[in-house]
């Protein structure tokens, strides 16, 4: 039985080989819980590095112009990539 693992990598800009500035992992196999230490390093330095290790990219961030008057406002992490990997899982 295969189960999905999701890896969210937040990058410094839109290029998949730019540096990771944040990350999250959600493990559908139930084997691993995300670390809670605030200084836990990202498992990969970039999306490209994760791809080289077998992760599949299933979402890339959309580039969109800022609304007029909102150009200098910031909100969510802009460059969010979502990657998946299918892992064996016991029934």
């Amino acid at each position, binding site marked *: 039985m295969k189960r999905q693992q999701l890896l969210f990598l937040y*990058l410094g800009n839109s290029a998949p080989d730019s540096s990771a500035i*944040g990350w999250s*992992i959600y493990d559908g196999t139930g084997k691993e819980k995300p670390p809670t230490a605030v200084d836990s390093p990202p498992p990969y330095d970039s999306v490209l590095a994760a791809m080289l290790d077998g992760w599949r990219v299933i979402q890339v961030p959309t580039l969109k112009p800022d609304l007029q008057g909102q150009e200098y406002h910031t*909100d*969510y992490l*802009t460059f969010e990539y979502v990657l998946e990997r299918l892992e064996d899982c016991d029934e």
Partner: protein
Amino acid sequence: MNKADLLNTKQMAEFASNGFIRFDDVLPLDLCAEIKAIFDANSAAGRGPMGSPLSGIWPEDSPMYRMIYQPRVRGMIESLVGPDSRYDHHAVHKTPGGKLEAQGLHADAEIDVREDAFDIQLSIFVHDTPLEMGGTRFLPGSHFRRVHESQVGRYQHVKGMYQVVCKAGTVVAWHHNLWHGAQPNFTDEMRYMFKLRLNPTVKQQLLWNTDDLDDAGVNGILFHGQPWYGQENRIEQFNRIRLWRFLTNNPTFDTALWYGRVENEPQ
């Protein structure tokens, strides 16, 4: 108010840049013990409704009042939201020993569209909070981000995240928009964090000790950036310029023509 108890300009710049400022050894240990006993007994309730003057929430002879009106705590409050601030709410946050999950990252309340004015929240730690006990984590520099409460909850790790590991008597004053969450508690003891939200009742300009207003070190503090900003670093510096213009009542404050460049429209 003794000037020495107010924040100075460099400390205000730190608040404007990071969205929080921390002070250790603010409260005497005997007062911390009194307050902890109040938390143990669930008796920290105040007597005024939300929106009342802070000065009337707890009786003047009570430990709660003495905690908030310790000179350095009062100095933080008056520097950031002015005298006669308005009580918004308070909470005694409890994280039981053995709670191994981190609280999801979030910003309190709703999206706050105020451009300049801000509330503060005080986090007061009345017992030692070592690493294994948790403490609150804050994302430095997230206070300009307009997000809706826990919609940032899926961000587990962001570079530069700061965890409050401290001794009893530590106080953190933070901007209401700052992203934060409770860390796990790997001990078998209850962890307390007292949170108090306050609203300004005056325009938040030059409320601190401004003797060092022109100190050459201020810009370096204000514009040091964060490791998670990536290519949005410049937009974040615009936010700091805007806030500093407001705080100092100096509408032409700038650094390296960043704002002056885009404001330049000769007629």
